[in-house]
């Protein structure tokens, strides 16, 4: 056993809650995807993320207690991942922003020897696939029809304000997040350019309302999401499933 691998609760929850919440959102697509291949792809990505979440939450405590018995103010996910699915373009824009970030983050973690290196080494392969999927759909929607272009642009613009938060420092996460931010911007700018989309011009962080998920300050749709997710578990205290 290694001795230097004390897990930072804040870091494990930040990464784990991101994966848990985004997985949940993608799970909401089941049965409603635009083509059957996307039923498979979105569920596949959701499952990968749920797998990551389970490992990360288990580093801190009992995965189910953490997922089902914490209240909104105790969740540490970024506000980006809790945003409602919207149309397919919104889901893809969220995926593009997040998977690009996650790929860079896990790439860094995998190359280090911290407590997340093992998980990151496995997850980086998954998130490379997620990023590829998001990129290809960004290209198809951005450079598809006038309608898909407009929808994709609107989605990219609407979610832009939630992207800055991803690069705020997280306690115990041994990654130079501001350095990742530059690479992230370059990557996203490149994909959007190839998709004939304009890089959004608005702020990437704002007042407290955008960019405080890591402090447990979330957006309104999140509470409703948790109510649905936790209802059954909370209705049967102490039960095993």
């Amino acid at each position, binding site marked *: 056993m290694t001795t230097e691998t004390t897990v930072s609760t804040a870091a494990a929850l930040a990464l784990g809650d991101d994966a848990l919440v985004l997985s949940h959102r993608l*799970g909401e697509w089941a049965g409603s995807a635009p083509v*059957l291949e996307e*039923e498979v792809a979105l569920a596949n990505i959701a499952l990968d993320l749920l797998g990551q979440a*389970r490992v990360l939450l288990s580093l801190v405590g009992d995965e189910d207690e953490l997922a089902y018995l914490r209240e909104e103010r105790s969740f540490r996910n970024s506000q980006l991942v809790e945003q409602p699915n919207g149309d397919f373009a919104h889901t893809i824009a969220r995926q593009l922003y997040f998977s690009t970030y996650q790929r860079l983050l896990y790439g860094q973690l995998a190359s280090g020897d911290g407590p997340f290196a093992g998980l990151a080494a496995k997850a980086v392969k998954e998130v490379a696939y997620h990023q590829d999927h998001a990129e290809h759909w960004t290209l198809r929607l951005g450079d598809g029809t006038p309608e898909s272009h407009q929808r994709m642009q609107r989605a990219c613009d609407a979610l832009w304000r939630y992207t800055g938060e991803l690069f705020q420092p997280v306690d115990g996460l041994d990654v130079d997040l501001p350095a990742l931010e530059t690479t992230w911007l370059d990557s996203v700018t490149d994909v959007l350019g190839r998709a004939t989309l304009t890089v959004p011009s608005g702020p990437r962080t704002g007042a407290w309302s955008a960019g405080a998920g890591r402090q447990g300050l979330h957006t309104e749709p999140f509470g409703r999401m948790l109510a649905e997710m936790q209802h*059954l578990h909370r209705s049967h205290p102490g*039960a095993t499933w």
Partner: protein
Amino acid sequence: MTAVTAGTTGTTGTPGASDAAVAAEQAAYEAVFDAAVAADERIEPRDWMPEDYRASLVRQIAQHAHSEIIGMQPEANWITRAPSLRRKAILMAKVQDEAGHGLYLYSAAETLGTSRDELLDKLHSGRQKYSSIFNYPTLTWADVGAIGWLVDGAAITNQVPLCRCSYGPYARAMVRVCKEESFHQRQGYEALLALSNGTEAQHAMAQDAVNRWWWPSLMMFGPPDDESTHTAQAMAWKIKRHTNDELRQRFVDIAVPQAEALGLTLPDPDIRWNEERGHYDFGPIDWTEFWDVLKGNGPCNDQRLSKRRQAHEDGAWVREAAAAYAEKHTGKHGEAQA
């Protein structure tokens, strides 16, 4: 096994040949087809086959594919409420597998000269059916377990013999489908077992779900043999290997001891072992309900079809975008991005 290769449409005939010659050729093809079926050989897409055989397979495979797709809904209904992360992962994987099964089956149907778009259109317009079981609602978490145990159990009983179906692409699809279905069935059983052995409330939830799903599961085998219009022909063609009633009996014989092991009862006071027959006797099925659900009057018929149509309509702009993008870029990069 290849019988006779005669294009994909089944129509033959050489320009200028006499009617008698065409008829003789047709008879020869039929004889080869009949001999291949009799010898348990597989019919393949390019083999000649009777038009009725083709139509019957398209109907059955399409209905099977549609059932996988509509069948995602009652279970997906619980993905966002699954009570533990482990159960949530299992359920997501299952629903994903169902979409995959739908894809295999549409591919198998396409080898018969139809297309997925055409089949989906028939599903959406109500011209093709899906399994009536999916017109029942999932009201509690235990329904997910009951579906795994009973509905998947019935499906497997139906589908294992289809692995030996005379049409090769369908038989091969079923081999893959059955492997995954068996896995789901065990997981469903295990989920119910956890509930049955859990708190009083959980046990009651499990029992209630079994009470609601038992009879609809028995109906999955279709009408009784004397009312089944397709059975005789399907058996002669070796598409089906057993009658509806035979398979239903087989399912009951397997399910009764499983229910006992679960510590749950089946909602049928007439179930008892019949020493003479070597089978479990069971009570009469409410065929009025069966035909009613089939005709569209089940609890969720409208809801299921509306949701499917909605997903398709909402996704139209996405599919158009993919097609437009592929059109623009196929030439440039030499690859289609569909």
